[in-house]
């Protein structure tokens, strides 16, 4: 599939960022202050806001039943015009309307698949890191196995076993990134576990669950957030890749990756069919990466001026 960004690609500094005592609200504010000064990151944030805006108000911009999925076979593969801002696709559907509605699915797949991966991977990583020993060994070896199995096999397996729909697609994309989140979280937890404030919590009789979820997890969040932002980008690319091999979203629902992959045979005859979804994917991913990089810088104490 596409490039994967794993824990190993994060500088040690990010992991170290979490070692410095518990984060308070004010510290997040400080991160935001730092982020605000990073023009590239803010640029990314603005673009992402626009994308989110499009997703939220998609129905006001174009009606789903009468525009987005309505076929108009006499207007097939028309170039951009006043009527169709981005032209029409092979069924004469309005590409602009589909792009706007496509933001919903693409964002949802991106964000939710990462959320699933973080929840499962994060929990496994936290448990492994916190308890250590044999449990740690077992969990991490299983993660190694999942990491070694090609994501495409996992994706095809899930889609063919559970059926192709939005949820399974997200699951398919999530599964292959679970091990990398497990690694990141485990690394942070390892560094936190013997810190004084954890000892203190333990001393006052807090349960393991409470310690993990109230004290350790919030403090291990920083690297996860950074990786998550990049992960959303990877997930959007993976969706396009899965569509390319025929395992994308269920038609006629619009989704950028499926639009890009589906339009590839028209590349030379109707450039607009692939160009707009391609650009949308590129710009969104660019924005996510810029924001991710900005967050990483902002969270890294040693890079601060």
């Amino acid at each position, binding site marked *: 599939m596409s490039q994967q960004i794993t824990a190993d690609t994060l500088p040690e500094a990010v992991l170290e960022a979490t070692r410095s005592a518990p984060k308070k609200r004010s510290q997040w504010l400080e991160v935001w202050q730092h982020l605000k000064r990073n023009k590239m990151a803010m640029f990314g944030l603005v673009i992402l806001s626009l994308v989110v805006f499009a997703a939220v108000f998609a129905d006001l911009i174009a009606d789903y039943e009468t525009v987005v*999925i*309505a*076929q108009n*076979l006499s207007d*097939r593969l028309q170039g951009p015009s006043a009527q169709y801002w981005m032209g029409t696709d*092979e*069924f*004469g559907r309005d590409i602009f309307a589909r792009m706007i509605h496509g933001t919903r699915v693409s964002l949802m797949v991106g964000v939710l698949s990462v959320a699933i991966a973080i929840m499962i991977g994060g929990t496994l990583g936290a448990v492994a890191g916190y308890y250590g020993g044999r449990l740690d060994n077992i969990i991490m070896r299983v993660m190694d196995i999942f990491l070694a199995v090609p994501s495409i096999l996992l994706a*095809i397996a899930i*889609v*063919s*076993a559970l*059926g*192709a729909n939005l949820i399974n697609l997200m699951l398919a994309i999530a599964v292959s990134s679970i091990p990398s989140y497990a690694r990141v979280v485990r690394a942070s937890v390892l560094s936190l576990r013997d810190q004084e404030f954890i000892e203190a919590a333990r001393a006052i009789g807090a349960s393991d669950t409470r310690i993990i979820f109230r004290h350790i997890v919030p403090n291990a969040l920083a690297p996860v957030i950074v990786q998550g932002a990049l992960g959303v980008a990877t997930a959007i690319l993976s969706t396009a890749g899965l569509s390319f*091999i*025929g*395992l994308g979203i*269920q*038609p*006629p629902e619009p989704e950028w990756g499926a639009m890009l992959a*589906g339009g*590839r*045979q*028209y*590349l*030379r*005859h109707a450039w607009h069919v692939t160009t707009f979804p391609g650009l949308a994917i590129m710009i969104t991913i660019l924005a996510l990466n810029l924001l991710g990089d900005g967050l990483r810088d902002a969270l890294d104490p040693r890079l601060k001026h």
Partner: protein
Amino acid sequence: MKYSAKTAIAVALTALLAGCGGQEETAQVRDTLIVAQGADAKTLDPHATNDQPSARVAAQIYNQLLTIDADMNVIPDLAVSWESVDANTTVFKLRQGVKFHNGEELKASDVKFTLDRMIDSPTVAHIAGTIKTVDVIDDYTIKITTHQPFGPLLYHLTHTASSILSEKAVTEAGDNYGQQPVGTGPYKFADWAAGDSISLTVNGEYFDGVQEIPNVTFRNIIEGTNRTIALETGEVDVAYDIEPIDKDTVRNHENLQLLEGESLSINYFGFNTRKKPFGDVRVRQAIGYAVNSQDIIDAVVMGSGIPTNSSISTRVFGHSPEAYKYSQDYEKARQLMVEAGYADGFKTTIWTNDNPVRVQIAQVLQAQLRKINIDMAIEVVEWGAFLDGISRGEHDTYLFGWVTVTGDADYGLYPLYHSSAHGGAGNRSFYTDTKMDQMLDAARESVNVEERKALYSDIQIQLQKELPHYPIYVGIQNVGLKKDVKGFQLSPAGHHKLKGVDFES
């Protein structure tokens, strides 16, 4: 370090530029015909597979006892003549002096060995039909006996799976035979770079004249767009299955030409007649009136199809022009829906595999059926799960295709509509009708050509009334070639034979 980085860039650039220059040297000596198709052959053992990419290569290496000409007539190949002794028995006289690529002479024992092996192979046994025994009468005479009279026997013997193998070569190669095939055809197998290309060289002892072009290479170019590109850039001489959208590019290119012809394949929209509401013929007919095939053909395959009235192409023996042809009529469709008790429509699903053409067809069908209040969700299912699911009858409706490779109606109709073929054998609409079974059996067991034609006509008329499948269109196949490639003839089954192809000097 900076220095070395610079050097590295310089080296890389030089390499790139050198690569660009090196291109011009190729393409001079034309001793090889390069043919591109969309997938690599699986195996060149005709008894181990039944897929088209393999058959397209095997067609150059092997001969069958009989073959089909461009007008769909059965003509002699390795058998020079044949005679029906009785309804169950046919005697074939073999061509004499035919040599296999390994130097062995073709004998009746090879034919017996081949057909016996075919009957034993689960992959292709069903193509051998009801062959019971094969007897060697002398070195050049063979007798084939069937269990029951079998009308389409001669057509089945033209199938690539009925290619005649050398007993010695097969025995010697054992499990590796599929990668070192030996036949009697105009080209012999030379080399196979798995996943990339198969090279053939000319058979200097071919019984029907030695080919002009010394080598043929079959290249595997998966993406349709890229096959056209390779043709344009001159990397290949012939490209099979040009994408519909690229057809004009090839047609209008100064160095290229496009051959097109009606194929033996159809695409159909099938209904699971075991499930509600598709057990009701009125619902099926309503859908028949709601669909507009021409729109599908125009939108999805850019006109590369012909609306049809039958599950077999007009080129297939037994096709009936008399069967009813549906045309879009929403009034009739709605009325039938009301009669069936579905005035408000219903919800259903359509299964398709991830073949982009089928997924697109499903989308147009979905839009067309919405007009009569049928809310049809599209389930794109991965091929393995698809084949499994529709063979078990898990689907409501489905999109599928069929190629009547043998050119005889039996191959196209019996598996699709006979109740004994429910599920994986072909009848995935689970259509069950005693009268239909009787007619299909009678047509199969008749050896009288006129009687068979009449029976098949009745069958197709009946099927269009019952409509267990809505036949959407007959495919038009195409091949793109350089203008200087001469003598290429389309085979209706798609297994184009390169015999007689030459470069114009």
